[in-house]
């Protein structure tokens, strides 16, 4: 029999970025809040301190900060007629675990999505007609606009202290920023980071071809900054140990450096780590959540009653817990009906690599996680898709983040995989190579989805989640088009040799691409095609809010974190200023 704790006003499932933001906003509103985190407590001091943090084997190769796949993983197949098998080690994406969540090990790219992303279906129909999209493409509008989200992006970016250059302040275009961005209310909190050599070569080449390069918005800070919560960040040192690592310098914006210390001081907040939530409990009518049931570190099952449940785990885990809790109708690809697990999407990435003469020292180890220069000329609907036959796009940029040698030792095609010729090529090219990223969108289709696996179980005896995914034709066309543009820019960077190819099917879950898994509990304005409403409130259970990249109806060209942070503040505002005053649906179906 599970131990039953005293009821609280709100319980947070996951104390990462979403949980910390919601915890702060809800305690500020006077609520008594418990945060349940499955992983360990961890802090800049002592957990992320150098020099031991700069250990490529432990953190990059053995993935010490990531979800422990010995206990919980997922199964994967390309299509519904295949047999899904467990992903026995992480590869293509790296969900974190522990206090502060995946934000501890992120790189810090901090982009806003465009209005054309939030209105992707209606925009496509407006501009290209209703027959432009294939029938299998299930992209839809988010139910919010860029103007709706602007104040929440602003708030999140000022929490983090993002380093960047505005391209559009209240409709006024600013030289040096991103000319394609929607109006922002003010300049970035801190100036852009310094531009590394390879990024400067890219900028020059892109400008020469008539494109519009700008500094990548970075949450590795360019200068000291105090955020509105009163926490201070320091200047990034370009140490080259960012993604997959904690930051010892207080220079990467994470919950540890921007908000957690304040939340943990609140008397009305209690953090419980090592607590794995098994399910969200609902009443007999299945209309109201009564709390959650979790297992603590010593294996005891505990029930935590709560008036409000905030599900803010990693995107994939949000979907998993909704399926395990049987809240919302699971998606069925054969009928197209059901919503939970629907519209799983990813990110369509590729690269273009420039091999230089030995006189060109790129110094790839002098990098920060999100330094570099990018361009948005082929992002979203910033270019005419009419003659191209696909939707979506990609940003292109030189945004290398490290020169750690186990992961990074580029060699030109034709180099043997081992032996003296391999060794010679590694030594020859390591410091004389630069690589452009093509970071592209991912449309939702009726075939790509998440559900529960019928065979494999996790360490708590619960079914693993099953991912059915392959790259849609639309995105392969997009990748072919934008990668060709990137190769043309790479050619203009005056190297000896340029190499690269578009993303190709089949999707390979063993090769790292990005940790930008989206969808499965998508937001919208119609309960038939979304799991949560535009305020991220469950259509079925009004006192449950689900927040994360799992809300994205499809994935955009840009990195998702800024949008997840903005959504967290957006939902917190709706809860505090509307829901708590009149508990119930904020958007009657």
């Amino acid at each position, binding site marked *: 029999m599970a131990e039953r704790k005293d009821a609280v006003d709100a319980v947070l499932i996951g104390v990462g970025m979403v949980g910390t933001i919601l915890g702060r906003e809800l305690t500020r509103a006077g609520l008594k809040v418990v945060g349940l985190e499955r992983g360990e407590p961890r802090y800049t001091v002592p957990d992320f301190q150098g020099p031991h943090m700069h250990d490529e084997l432990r953190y990059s190769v053995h993935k010490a900060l990531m979800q422990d796949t010995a206990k919980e993983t997922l199964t994967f197949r390309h299509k519904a007629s295949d047999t899904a098998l467990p992903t026995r080690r992480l590869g293509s994406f790296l969900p974190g675990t522990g206090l502060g969540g995946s934000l501890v090990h992120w790189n810090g790219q901090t982009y806003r999505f465009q209005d054309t992303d939030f209105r992707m279906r209606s925009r496509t129909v407006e501009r290209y007609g209703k027959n432009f999209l294939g029938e299998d493409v299930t992209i839809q509008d988010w139910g919010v606009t860029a103007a709706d989200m602007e104040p929440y992006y602003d708030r999140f970016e000022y929490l983090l202290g993002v380093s960047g250059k505005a391209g559009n302040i209240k409709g006024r275009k600013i030289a040096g920023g991103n000319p394609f961005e929607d109006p922002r209310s003010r300049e970035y909190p801190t100036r852009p980071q310094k531009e590394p050599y390879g990024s400067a070569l890219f900028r020059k080449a892109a400008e020469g071809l008539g494109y519009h390069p700008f500094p990548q918005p970075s949450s590795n800070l360019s200068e000291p900054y105090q955020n509105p919560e009163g926490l201070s960040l320091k200047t990034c040192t370009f*140490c080259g140990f960012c993604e997959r690592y904690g930051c010892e310098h207080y220079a990467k914006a994470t919950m540890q450096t921007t908000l957690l210390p304040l939340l943990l001081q609140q008397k009305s907040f209690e953090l419980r780590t*090592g607590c794995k939530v098994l399910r969200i409990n609902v009443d007999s009518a299945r209309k109201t959540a009564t709390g959650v049931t979790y297992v603590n570190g010593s294996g005891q099952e505990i029930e935590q009653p709560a008036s409000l449940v905030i599900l803010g785990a990693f995107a994939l885990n949000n979907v998993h817990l909704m399926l395990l809790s049987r809240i919302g109708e699971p998606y069925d690809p054969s009928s197209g009906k059901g919503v939970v697990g629907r519209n799983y999407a990813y990110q369509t990435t590729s690269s273009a690599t420039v091999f230089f003469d030995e006189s060109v020292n790129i*110094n790839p180890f002098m990098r920060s996680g999100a330094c570099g220069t990018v361009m948005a000329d082929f992002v979203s609907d910033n270019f005419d898709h009419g003659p191209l036959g696909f939707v979506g796009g990609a940003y292109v940029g030189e945004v290398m983040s490290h020169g750690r040698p186990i992961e990074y030792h580029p060699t030109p095609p034709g180099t043997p995989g081992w032996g003296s010729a391999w060794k010679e090529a590694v030594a020859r090219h390591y410091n004389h190579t630069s690589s452009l990223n093509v970071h592209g969108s991912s449309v939702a289709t009726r075939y790509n989805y998440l559900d529960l696996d019928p065979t494999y179980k996790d360490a708590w005896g619960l079914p693993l989640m099953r991912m059915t995914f392959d790259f849609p034709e639309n995105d392969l066309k997009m990748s072919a088009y934008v990668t060709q543009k990137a190769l043309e820019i790479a050619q203009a960077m005056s190297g000896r040799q340029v190499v690269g190819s578009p993303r190709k099917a089949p999707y390979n879950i063993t090769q790292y691409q990005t940790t930008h898994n989206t969808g499965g509990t998508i937001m919208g304005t119609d309960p038939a095609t979304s799991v949560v409403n535009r305020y991220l409130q469950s259509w079925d259970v009004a006192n449950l809010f689900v927040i994360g990249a799992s809300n994205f109806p499809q994935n955009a060209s840009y990195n998702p974190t800024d949008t997840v942070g903005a959504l967290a503040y957006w939902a917190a505002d709706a809860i505090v200023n509307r829901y708590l005053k009149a508990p119930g649906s904020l958007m009657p179906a």
Partner: protein
Amino acid sequence: MERVSRRAFLRGAGAAAAAIVTPACNRTEQTAGRQRAPYAFLNADEAAFIEPAVARLIPADTLGPGALEADVPAFIDLQLAGAWGAGERLYRSGPWQAGTAEQGYQLAFTPAELFRTALRGIGDDLRKSGRNGFAKLNVQDQDAYLKSLESESRDLAGVPSNIFFQSLLEVTVEGFFSDPVYGGNKDMVGWKLIGFPGAYANYYELVDQHGIAFKRAPMSLGQDASGTIHMHPVEPAQANGKAK
């Protein structure tokens, strides 16, 4: 020159590889005038393959030391003896069945089991074809044998040879380029080969000095002011040891 507190330098790439094999039961053995710790995991037969094999994967040549000189066999030994060898972060529930390449590793073996099993299979394989041990082949034949493991999925006592080869190559590269605290990359020869400056890193003042030749000697994360590198005995299984 850094002084290494435990495992000593193995001299002579490929030369009398069998002679430097230390049975696991031996405490220490004098090699090239220095003390050398015994292997924790590899037995004599296994070491007699691993040592010459890694010397072919990353050879000593005109560019400098290779994997053998970098103590990569010692790195592999400690990895196999520790948490990684035991299947740290490896999902190990059945049912077991072969999948596609895109679904990834689907064998029931932990890395330690995979190496032990495959190395036994290699011994049998060589004996069957009348060859008496990998170490005794000339380097051309060693390369040809390694290529056959790589390109075929020959059955090595239950392990497909290409899966074993890929795993051996990965762990060899890791041992050549990881921090010396794990027992490989001795004297940071892997880092010196490419110009990677190692664990101590602050480039704020240098990142916008485009194209500079950065010549600082690399530094290990286990390196103290006296230049001694302190090795981790065995890699811990968790990111940190804090109580929950």
